[in-house]
C-alpha cells in the first residue's frame, strides 16, 4: 500500500537534495543517475522542489534560522532539508499548507527519525502562525544578493555595476524551454503551426532563425517530431554560435569542446556537407555527442581528446573554422543550474581562465590563414571573456577581431555579451577571431 499522497515526490527530492547539499554533487548528475518516479506528476514535483529549494536556499535558511529555537545537531542535516522542502512549498508554491506540512512530517519518519517529526510539525506550523510577521523578513531575504554566495555577488557587481541586481534576479527566475527547429526538415512557421495543433503555446525568438520558446516546459516526448530529429532542446543564446561562424559548404570545421553536441548538430543542420570534427576531453560526455548526432541523423567525426594537445588526434590538415566553446564558470546559466552557485568556488574563474587561454593557444595553430575562430563561454565574467581574448590578441600578431554585425547582447571590447534573461536567453559571450 502506498504511504501517503505526494510523499514519494518529496522523498525523492530529499534524496537528491541530500546528495547535492551534503555530498557536493551536481544537481544535473544526481537527477540523471536515479530512475524517474513512475508517476510523471510526482517526478515533475520532485524536480520543481529540487530546483526551487536550491534557488531559494539562502532565503529559506534565513527563515528557518528565525524559526528554530536551537541549532539542529550536525547529523540532522537531512531533517534540515526536510524543513527546507516544507518551507519552500509553504512560501513559494500553491500546494495546500496541510499537504506541505503533513508530507514534511512524514519525511522525518521516512528518514528513520520519528523523534524529529514533532519538531518539523512545530516549526512549519509556527511559520504558518507567524507568516504575516515573517513576511517582511522573507521579502528582505528574498533579495537576490542573499540567494548567491558573497564572492559571486561581488564578482557580478564588479563586472556589471549597472546591471548586477538584474542579473542576480534573472539567476533566480525559471529559464524557459527553447527549441531549435531543424529548418532543413521543417520550417519554423510550419513547426509553430504543428505545436498549435498539439495545444502547445509557443513563439519565435528574436535574433535566432531556428529558435522557438515554449510558454511552459514540456516533456520532449510530447513534442511532435522530437524523436525523428525535427527539433532539439537548446537555449537561444547557444543557437547564436552557428550563424556567427557561418561556414560555407564543404568547409573543414573543428568543434573543439563539443559535448553534448548541441552546437555541433546546429552547424551540421545548417550545412550538412561540412567536414566536421567534434572533440571533447571527457569520455562520457564525448559519448553524448554521438547520441545527439545519431538522433538527428548527422555525420561527424567524434574524438575523445584534449583539443589543446592536437598531437594526440589531429591529422595535420588545417581547419577553415574553429568553434571553441570553452569550459567556464557557467555564471551565465545559473538559472538552469541552481546548484551551481553553491558548488563553484571563488578561485574557479581564475583557474578556468588559464585553461581557456591554453585551449585558445592550442587550437589557433590548427586554423588556416583567413579562417575564423569563434570563442564562446556561458560566463558573464570578463576574466573569462574579454580579458582572455585581450591577452591572446596582444601575444598573436596574426589574430584580429572579426566583423560582428550582431544586434543582440552588449558590445564588449572584443566580443558581444548576452546577459541572462536578455531576450529570454542564457548568459553567453562570443568573440570572433580572424587569422591573418
Amino acid at each position, binding site marked *: *500500500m*502506498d*504511504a*501517503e*499522497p505526494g*510523499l*514519494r515526490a518529496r*522523498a525523492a527530492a530529499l534524496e537528491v537534495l541530500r546528495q547535492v547539499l551534503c555530498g557536493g554533487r551536481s544537481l544535473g548528475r544526481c537527477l540523471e543517475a536515479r530512475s524517474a*518516479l*513512475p*508517476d*510523471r*506528476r*510526482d517526478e515533475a514535483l520532485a524536480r520543481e522542489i529540487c530546483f526551487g529549494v536550491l534557488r531559494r536556499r539562502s532565503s529559506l535558511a534565513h527563515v528557518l534560522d528565525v524559526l528554530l529555537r536551537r541549532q539542529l545537531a550536525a547529523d540532522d542535516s537531512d531533517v534540515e532539508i526536510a524543513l527546507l522542502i516544507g518551507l519552500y512549498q509553504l512560501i513559494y508554491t500553491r500546494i495546500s499548507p496541510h499537504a506541505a506540512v503533513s508530507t514534511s512530517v*512524514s519525511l522525518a*519518519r*521516512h528518514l*528513520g527519525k*520519528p523523534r524529529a*517529526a514533532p519538531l518539523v510539525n512545530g516549526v512549519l506550523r509556527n511559520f504558518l502562525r507567524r507568516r504575516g510577521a515573517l513576511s517582511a523578513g522573507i521579502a528582505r531575504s528574498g533579495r537576490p544578493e542573499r540567494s548567491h554566495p558573497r564572492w559571486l555577488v561581488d564578482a557580478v557587481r564588479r563586472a556589471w555595476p549597472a546591471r548586477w541586481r538584474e542579473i542576480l534576479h534573472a539567476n533566480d527566475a525559471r529559464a524557459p524551454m527553447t527549441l531549435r527547429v531543424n529548418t532543413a526538415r521543417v520550417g519554423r512557421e510550419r513547426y509553430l503551426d504543428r505545436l498549435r495543433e498539439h495545444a502547445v503555446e509557443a513563439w519565435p525568438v528574436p535574433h535566432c532563425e531556428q529558435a522557438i520558446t515554449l510558454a511552459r516546459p514540456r*516533456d*520532449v*516526448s510530447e513534442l511532435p517530431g522530437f524523436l525523428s530529429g525535427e527539433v532539439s532542446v537548446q537555449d537561444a543564446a547557444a543557437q547564436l554560435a552557428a550563424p556567427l561562424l557561418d561556414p560555407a559548404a564543404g568547409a573543414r570545421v573543428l568543434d573543439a569542446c563539443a559535448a553534448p553536441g548541441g552546437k555541433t548538430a546546429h552547424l551540421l543542420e545548417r550545412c550538412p556537407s561540412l567536414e566536421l570534427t567534434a572533440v571533447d576531453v571527457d569520455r562520457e560526455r564525448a559519448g553524448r555527442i554521438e547520441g545527439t548526432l545519431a538522433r538527428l541523423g548527422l555525420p561527424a567525426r567524434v574524438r575523445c581528446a584534449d583539443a589543446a594537445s592536437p598531437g594526440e588526434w589531429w591529422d595535420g590538415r588545417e581547419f577553415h573554422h574553429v568553434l571553441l566553446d570553452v569550459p567556464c564558470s557557467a555564471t551565465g546559466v545559473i538559472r538552469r543550474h541552481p546548484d551551481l552557485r553553491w558548488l563553484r568556488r571563488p578561485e574557479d574563474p581564475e583557474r578556468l581562465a588559464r585553461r581557456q587561454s591554453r585551449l585558445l593557444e592550442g587550437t589557433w595553430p590548427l586554423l588556416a590563414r583567413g579562417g575564423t575562430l569563434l570563442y564562446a563561454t556561458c560566463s558573464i565574467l570578463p576574466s573569462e571573456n574579454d580579458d582572455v581574448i585581450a591577452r591572446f590578441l596582444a601575444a598573436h600578431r596574426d589574430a584580429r577581431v572579426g566583423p560582428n554585425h550582431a544586434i543582440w547582447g552588449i558590445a564588449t571590447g572584443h566580443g558581444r555579451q548576452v546577459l541572462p534573461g536578455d531576450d529570454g536567453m542564457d548568459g553567453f559571450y562570443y568573440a570572433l577571431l580572424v587569422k591573418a
Partner: protein
Amino acid sequence: MAILEVLHYPDPRLRNRARPVEHVDERVRQLVDDMLETMYAAPGIGLAAVQVNVPLRVITIDCSESRNEPVCLINPTIEAEEGELEAEEGCLSVPGVYESVTRSRWIRVRALDRDGEPIELEAEDLLAVCVQHEMDHLEGILFVDYLSRLKQARIRRRTKKLQRQT
C-alpha cells in the same frame, strides 16, 4: 539486500494468483528482506510479493509512525473479521491514485513469520486495511477493482498517459 522493481497497473502479472510458500528457506528470507527495503525506499506501508513479480504468498507491512516495526506475513489467512471502515487507499503499483475503499475494521490473521513460525495477528484500523489490501494482491485483486467502472476506465487512461516514457 536490493531494491526490487515494482510492477505497475495495468501490468497483467499483477493479476497472477500467488502460490503458497512450501518451505520458508533462505531464498524466501532474502525475498522478505528485499521487499522490506523496496517498501521503505518507495516509501510505502505495505508490499506483496506479486508486486515485485514473485507469485508467492508473501507480504510485508509497516504502518508504524516510527517506520521500525516491520511485519512479514507468509501464507496469511483471515480467520475472523468485524466491522466496516471506509478509508482512502493508494498502491505502489497504481502510482498517483488515491480512492476510498470499504473494508473490515478488525481482522484476525494466521500466517507464518520470517522464520517460518506460525503466528496470529489481530489488526484494526490502518493496519487491518493494509493487511487486507496486500492480501488482495495475492489473489490478483487491486484496490481499483472496487471502484466504479467509470472511475476504473478513467484511471487506466490516466496511468497510460502518465507512464508514457520519453
